């Protein structure tokens, strides 16, 4: 397999990847290294992991990071209810407590969380660690350890070594600076908003039924809109939503019915302020530019 092949495959599945991204992903898969993707929200960082899993016909295991994420949510947890029942049952049989303890802290009572699940797959899974920058620094350190050794130590059981090495994709929005150690361990790509050509290609892939002229208007408008001062710039997903909405309404030309176009902007502008920042006049100016 070559990286061009991967890029073509991705494109067939509906994901248009830049050369940079395709190469980074190709190397990540070939060399077995984690891939760190950074960039604004809505540029398809998460989607690439889903697409990769689809391509490889393997499982996508997702770990959504948040502040306060800890081992019991990311790695493993004991099944306390079952343990409790088991202890009761054993007590009636008058088993010695050492034996009971061994029993309830065995694999049978282990709940796998994403990280543990990912390294125990028969076929290498795609492990998506989403928004790693939201997790605490302590967790980042822990993650580093797992990413370098691919093994997890559970005090009661021992060390569990990976049956297969997952393809790891980490995403970050820049909520905080990631440690250098993590950056160094990963391949890196900064995913930015797509340029006009790429975005056209994405739209053509996702909404093939759309007329060329309207597609061009849509992309041009969204590209122009991203240059405006907005709190939340519309991402690719928003653009696709909008295109679907316009197609559903049977719009042929954005300039035809400014009122209606304005009403559909709910798909792109997600805050009150942004809506106020793009009144009908601005919208028409942008439509004019996009044409």
């Amino acid at each position, binding site marked *: 397999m070559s990286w061009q092949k991967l890029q073509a495959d991705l494109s067939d599945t509906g994901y248009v990847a830049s050369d940079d991204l395709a190469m980074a992903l190709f190397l990540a898969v*070939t060399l077995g290294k984690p891939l760190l993707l950074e960039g604004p929200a809505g540029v398809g960082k998460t989607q690439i992991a889903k697409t990769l899993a689809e391509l490889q016909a393997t499982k996508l295991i997702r770990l959504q990071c948040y502040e306060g994420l800890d081992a019991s949510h990311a790695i493993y947890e004991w099944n306390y209810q079952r*343990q*409790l029942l088991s*202890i009761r049952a054993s007590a009636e049989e008058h088993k010695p407590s050492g034996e*009971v303890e061994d029993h309830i802290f065995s694999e049978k009572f282990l709940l796998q969380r994403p990280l543990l699940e990912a390294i125990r797959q028969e076929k290498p899974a795609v492990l998506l660690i989403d928004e790693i920058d939201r997790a605490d620094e302590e967790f980042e350190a822990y993650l580093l350890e797992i990413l370098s050794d691919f093994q997890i130590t559970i005090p009661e059981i021992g060390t569990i070594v990976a049956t297969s090495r997952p393809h790891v994709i980490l995403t970050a929005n*820049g909520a905080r600076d990631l440690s*250098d150690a993590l950056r160094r361990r990963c391949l890196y790509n900064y995913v930015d908003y797509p340029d006009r050509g790429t975005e056209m290609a994405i739209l053509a892939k996702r909404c093939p039924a759309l007329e060329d002229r309207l597609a061009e208007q849509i992309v041009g408008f969204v590209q122009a809109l991203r240059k405006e001062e907005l709190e939340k710039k519309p991402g690719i997903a928003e653009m696709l939503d909008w295109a679907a909405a316009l197609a559903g309404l049977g719009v042929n030309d954005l300039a035809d019915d400014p009122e209606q176009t304005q009403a559909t902007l709910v798909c792109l502008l997600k805050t009150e302020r942004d809506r106020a920042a793009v009144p009908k006049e601005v919208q028409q100016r942008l439509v004019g530019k996009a044409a």
Partner: protein
Amino acid sequence: MQVTRFPERAAGPADRLAGFMAHLRMNGIPAGLGETETALAALCAIDPGNMAEVRLALKAICAGDADQEERFNDLFDAYWRNRGARRDSVATTSSAHQMQARGAGNYRMASGASDEAGEADTPDDESAGETGRPGTGRLVASRIRTTEKTDLRKLMTPEDLERAERVAERIARSIHDRRSRRRKAALHGEALDMRKILRKSVQRGGEPIELFRKARPDRPVHIVALLDVSGSMTVHARVFLAFLKGLVSADSRTDAYLFHTQLVRISDALRDGDTMRAVNRLSIMAQGFGGGTKIGANLKLFNAQYAAQSVNGRSVVIILSDGYDTDPPEMIAEALARLKRRGARIVWLNPLKGWEGYEPVARGMAAALPYLDHFAAANTLNDLAALEPWLNGI
């Protein structure tokens, strides 16, 4: 270059790649042995004769963030394409990249590598000693006792700067210590520590008699500092820069910015290990622009460019400025209002406030007041230190 006897081991690509990594290191991209190894493995997976492919691959491997990624292309061209360096021996390429390194001096501020070009910074350091001196003569006898109460305009010596840095570090640390959100064993926590409870209950036949709890420690806060270095603030700039450096170095979440007529992010520059060098560099950077202050415009720019990433509900935005603005005051108000909506707390430290009879009459300052959570003086180190209890209280 001598012909090697073991072509298969000391193969050209390995040497040249190692040279390239050294070239990157000199230009502030920390690439090392690990990267060389990965790069070699990568070359086996792609077509090494295709320069475009090699460029993409090496970029994915060596760049560690968006900034490095942006610079990578130039560095790549400089090493592999200048003067046909591709066919040069390692010795000549290394002198070629030294020249390149010199040309790209700006990049090296964040580099921790011990490189020759780093020595070229020494003039900075020397002038640092000199420019840092005014004022020393007057304060020699009593400095130890009085610095903490001396107006910051008089604090110029390296020791003073260091003290400012310490104060800041203490503030940052006191916050940092309350950081963790992970649950810890606690006497009166909100959640049960099931693992511990079960373990103890085994001896009692599964009767959880003792309940152990765990709790989340306090939520963390982090600091975003914006320092005004316009003409009216220059007298304070050095001490405040040292203060910012302290904040930044104590906590990796802290972000720092300078503004005058433009806005510059300086967090990385401040993480430079050498205080005096960093402070002097930044002082020069700050003086370079001059002109009026544009607080409103800069805050607006900050909102647009950086706030989305660095400001959230647990941020404390510290603005160090005297509030003299050339922009209309509504701009400040609007920008602060927007910042406020992100849930951040805004602290304004004004060096003028400590003066007797000061009233916030500067129009910009007056416009900002309604949005501030804390408005304090900042003309002595004590004033700065007074921030600590306030921050701990939130």
